[in-house]
């Protein structure tokens, strides 16, 4: 039993480290080679977990070797367009100017229903409104609407938008200062004291305090619901 627990913890840590090394891209959009690696990682981790006769290193070694191969693969695809095309393929145009490219549809085995589903996801109801639909290398279908069907932008309406406040950054979280965010934002402890004083709360009563590029602050107290 103890052996299983130790193995479980070790393999869990190893898989987390392996996935972390492979990078965040893995979680959202999987390319064919990344999908293969992800599936195989779980299989490799499961083997020594199920069979206690098998040495732990038999699971960990191939797991990290796979990660190394994936790193080589991603580096090569980053540096070489040809290699990228061979491994991941090209994006394929499925619709252009509202007209379906049946040949590409057959080639990629994508149904009209799949395109309609992606269109609905973007709030487009008819094919006539689609300028281009592209099957991306990670399997998603990108839809670009025709100019007349696209929602108007500030540029179209010729209005000057208000200055963007940027992304708010968390400065205090659960009563503790987030040092690296404060440093990145260029906020000093004195500035923070002034902000907190303006709100009239103590540091330990703050659940979250954010500051954006325009120095707008937003505070949530601990007891606020």
């Amino acid at each position: 039993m103890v052996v299983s627990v130790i193995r479980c913890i070790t393999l869990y840590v190893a898989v987390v480290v392996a996935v972390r090394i492979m990078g965040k891209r893995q979680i959202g959009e999987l390319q064919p080679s990344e999908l293969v690696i992800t599936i195989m990682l779980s299989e490799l981790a499961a083997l020594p977990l199920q069979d206690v006769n098998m040495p732990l290193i038999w699971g960990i070694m191939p797991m990290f070797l796979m990660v190394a191969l994936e790193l080589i693969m991603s580096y090569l695809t980053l540096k070489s367009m040809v290699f990228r095309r061979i491994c991941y393929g090209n994006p394929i145009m499925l619709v252009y100017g509202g007209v379906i490219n049946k040949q590409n549809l057959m080639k990629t085995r994508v149904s009209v229903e799949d395109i309609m589903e992606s269109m609905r996801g973007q709030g487009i109801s008819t094919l006539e409104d689609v300028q281009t639909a592209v099957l991306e290398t990670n399997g998603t279908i990108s839809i670009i609407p025709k100019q007349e069907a696209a929602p108007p932008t500030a540029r179209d309406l010729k209005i000057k938008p208000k200055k963007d406040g940027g992304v708010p950054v968390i400065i205090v979280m659960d009563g503790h200062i987030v040092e690296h965010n404060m440093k990145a934002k260029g906020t000093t402890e004195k500035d923070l004291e002034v902000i907190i004083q303006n709100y009239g709360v103590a540091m330990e009563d703050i659940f979250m305090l954010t500051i954006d590029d325009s120095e707008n602050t937003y505070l949530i107290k601990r007891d606020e619901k």
Partner: protein
Amino acid sequence: MKRTFICFFGILVFVLSVSVFDGVFMSSFAENMESVLEEIQNVKSFDEMKDSADKMVDYYKSQEFLLHRLVPTNRLEEIEVSFVKLKAFLEVENYDECLAIAAEIESRVNQLYSTGFRNWYQKIKKCIG
């Protein structure tokens, strides 16, 4: 990119060091086991044979921790069963069976994971002369 390279070389060092350690350790284990087994096969008296068998079991026990990290347990259990058999035949002083079991242990040791590299190396060495 720098972090990716560090991770990559870290993995490479880990994999290579484990592989090299595995190869070196298994080769030396097989070599030592073979030399004791040779002793068993060449001795004349049962007392000497018993001493050599004890030496072999002691050596095996001293290497057990690392062996379990590198070799599946069931394969090691097969060798341990052969040890028990050898001891039993030594007790009843059955010379032929003792030799047969010693040969069996030798073949089991040679079949262990990654001792194969050592056999290839020896074959190549013989071919070269």
